[in-house]
């Protein structure tokens, strides 16, 4: 789905992406969470897609897999934004995802903890959260327009089927 002529970039599970270009970065979220960071003054944008809040205690997390976990992905996202010149003062954050997709057969409340780790990180680093679209039981396609900081969310209309 394209809403304008911006070049498109698909963000995969566990990926961390930062850019100063005008693009549409999109990803599909279920229980996973994406944080979209936008520095309106310096025109720097960043986005992640984490699956789990933190690695298991015994795990050795290398850089290839650090994007999977909110605890390691979000600091990495911030580091890369700062390398491009991001200033906290002019940066805002939006949080998406964390739906409880398989409510009847899965008991792990991973979705809630994914959201919690994002909120904790942003508070701890003094980054303003200006919007959230989290929870529920539906998937979200999130499209981050890096020229404006606008984020569009699309859901499937379940009433259309059956």
């Amino acid at each position, binding site marked *: *789905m394209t809403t304008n002529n911006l070049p498109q970039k*698909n963000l*995969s*599970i*566990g990926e961390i992406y930062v850019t100063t270009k005008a693009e549409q970065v999109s*990803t*599909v*979220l*279920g*229980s*996973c969470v994406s944080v979209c960071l936008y520095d309106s003054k310096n025109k720097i944008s960043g986005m992640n897609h984490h*699956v*789990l809040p933190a690695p*298991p205690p015994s795990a050795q997390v290398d850089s290839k897999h650090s994007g*999977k976990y909110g605890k390691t992905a979000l600091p990495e996202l911030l580091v890369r934004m700062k390398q491009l010149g991001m200033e906290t003062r002019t940066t805002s954050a939006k949080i998406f995802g964390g*739906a409880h*997709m*398989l409510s*009847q*057969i*899965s008991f*792990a409340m*991973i*979705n809630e903890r994914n959201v919690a780790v994002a909120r904790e990180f942003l508070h701890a680093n003094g980054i303003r959260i200006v919007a959230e679209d989290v929870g529920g039981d*539906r*998937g*979200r*396609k999130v499209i981050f327009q890096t020229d404006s900081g606008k984020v569009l969310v*699309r859901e*499937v209309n*379940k009433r259309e*089927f*059956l």
Partner: protein
Amino acid sequence: MDETVLERIKSVFSESAELAGRSMEMMVGRPLSIRVNRIEQIPFENLCESLYPPDTPMAMILLRITGDNSGYMVFLMYEENARKLNEILWGSVPFEDGVINLSDPSALGELANVVGSCFLNVLADRVGLELRPTEPFFVYDMLAAVLEGLIAEQSLIADKAILVDTNMAEKERGIGMHFLFLPSPDLVENLAARLR
């Protein structure tokens, strides 16, 4: 999991696919066959890409495996195939009274239960374990959104899934359906050790 074990799982699936096909024919009163196209071991991060674009809306039926070991089975179909199948199933009920509600996903759920149980019965028999499906869970949503939930839970303990690509055919009307088998590490271990 090495190639030999994968091949054995493929043979289990082919064997159960034949039984499942005959079972489905009994359920719908029309000839149906299931053919296994391919079987692959795929890392979780590549799972969605190897199927369809992540935002593709799909009808999915999930069954959790319990008993001696655990895991998941997932049936995936395009909306129009699920609708076709749903109508065929409801159409086969010897209708005297009651209400046929085409919006009720229990017909598709029962199909998944029967086919999934076929697979588990054959597998359980070959490895000498008890493996049961839980009641089917139907969901219609974007592919990646649903699979992510499973990946998140499973990736705490595993990093690969087994994709079985099937084609279900009702006479000339091919109804494509994917079947995903996500064994937990304990089940993988038992499969590797006991499958002959």
